[in-house]
């Protein structure tokens, strides 16, 4: 299971590199567009449309990485004051709600793609891009995000049920509360050691 998650993480990172490369490429195209427009008073157009697709594709590919790196923001004003076990339960709950959202996005994203695919929809622009292609790549990102969320939920739920709170915290804990939690874990460990050491 952990090996699958590692693999998923690596794949997510490749996705982010590819997304970043697309963004840089789009920046180049936009820059060229601006210069050409200024110098030759003509626009080859399409830079804005292309960038829109780049944003959709690259950000959907990045969703899974943000999840695995615990970059999706959570409000932890209350969280940091709760006992470690409850935090771990909240981590799992958070993943469940996230999975519901990711699943729903993928499901509706699929409909958007399938509609374009069936009708052969094209963008109402000069290029008339067949929408199914960018929408397919976007859908891949959403689906991968849902898949990774499900995997992470499975792993975290398993760890929670077997009482492995440290693993839940490591893979799904809130980032800003991390240090406080580590300290509390350390204290708990020390308390346990003291209790064992006593005759």
């Amino acid at each position, binding site marked *: 299971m952990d090996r699958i998650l590692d693999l998923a993480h690596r794949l997510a*990172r490749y996705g*982010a*590199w590819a*997304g*970043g*490369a697309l*963004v*840089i490429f*789009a*920046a*180049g195209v*936009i*820059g060229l*567009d*601006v210069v050409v427009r*200024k110098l030759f008073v003509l626009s080859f157009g399409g830079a*804005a*449309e292309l*960038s*829109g*697709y*780049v*944003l*959709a594709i*690259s*950000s*959907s*590919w*990045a*969703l899974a*990485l*943000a999840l695995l*790196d615990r*970059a*999706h*923001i*959570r*409000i*932890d*004003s*209350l*969280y*940091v004051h709760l006992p470690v076990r409850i*935090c771990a339960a*909240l981590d799992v*709950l*958070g993943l469940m*709600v*996230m999975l*519901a*959202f990711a699943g*729903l*996005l993928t499901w*509706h*994203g699929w409909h*958007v793609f399938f509609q374009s695919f069936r009708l052969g929809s094209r963008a109402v622009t000069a290029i008339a891009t067949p929408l199914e292609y*960018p*929408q397919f790549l*976007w859908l891949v990102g959403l689906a991968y995000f849902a898949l990774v969320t499900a995997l992470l939920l499975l792993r975290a739920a398993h760890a929670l049920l077997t009482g492995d709170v440290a693993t839940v915290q490591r893979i799904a804990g809130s980032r*800003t509360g991390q240090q406080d939690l580590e300290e509390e874990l350390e204290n708990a460990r020390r308390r346990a050691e003291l209790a064992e050491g006593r005759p």
Partner: protein
Amino acid sequence: MIWVTVAMLMALLALSIPIAAALAALGLSLDYIYSWMPLRLALGEMSWGVSTDFILFAIPLFVLLGELLLRSGIAERMYAAMSQWLSWLPGGLMHSNIGTCTLFAAVSGSSVATAATIGTVAVGEIERHGYNERLFLGTIAAGGTLGILIPPSIVMIVYGALTETSIPQLYLAGIIPGLVLALLFMATVVIACLARPGWGGDKIAVSWSMRWRTLPDLVPPLLIFVVVIGSIYTGLATPTESAALGVLMAMALAVWKRRMSWSMLRESCEGTMRTTGMIMLILIAATFLSFVVTSVGIGQQVTQMITESGLTPVQTMWMIVGLYLVLGMFMESLSMMIATVPIITPVVIGMGYDPVWFGVLMMLLLETALVTPPVGLNLFIVQGVRPRGQIRDVMIGSLPFVVTLLAMIVLLMLVPDLALWLPRIAS
């Protein structure tokens, strides 16, 4: 209906559900409870619409710009130059912190990036020169918040996109309040160090020859600022296009400084996409939520409630400010804005306030949120770049600047022209 919504939102956030998922869950619940037709069917088209919005493409571009600048080493040079020019003031390098933050804010669109960049460079100086650690850390946390007020600004772009306010006008409106706030921050340091001379640290060796020699180090950031902002107002580029020009310049700068490498580029891409993915998911959820909130009539109810309360617009505005200050203590700033602006802004505009002015006020409120405990992202960032110590030091050190920020908010409420004068003469 309003109170059910507020209670559900509070519960979801208190349970520490990721913001994007929490907003989506709230939207879906309201849809199930109050709507007579399933609004969620629009989720697919809506997500695609938000994800392909050309205006929002400025977000990854500005994040990437920040990541590239962070790794191109210009921050160290800027800091050295600023310390030559500003450290004669009572408070020494603390003024360089604020000055460098101000200048960096003019090329970076994010407060977090600003605080992280300047913090990394500056933190080593505390012990070397015997500064009061808390106040020093406070200048970084507070100075960093300037990132979203001084253009370019990612948060302003999001605000502009959500409220359909002109981003070039918002940019112009942020310049004067940004500079005034930077001066007020510096005044705060001067006052603190005149009262307690021991806080100001040792004298830094400066000379006019060093000053002139370091001056060229301030040119690259200024050049990027001129290109990014100048290209908008000369009509050469839209805000998104200007961000693309900024990215290209930052890449050229990194190549010129010999900092460009595959691993640097990979790291920049990774950081950029992680942040972009996070923001875009929240934006998708928030767009859906605000669609539901409008469709089932909650927005109307809020407006009605305020009209019936009999408060004058000015009183209402003070209430809104108070609400944001309290919310800002507990919520992360960007998500706070995204979750509330679709409901609050129509009310504010309905009362006759200028959306551009309210945008600048919103930036100040978010800046305050960034440095008010217990949840203030900039506090965490500054704590994160310290080698050791407790977060309490950063929180206490930031408090004087929270007072300064509050003073600036009052000032902007009393003198709206601080924000509106520049957009007016430009149009």
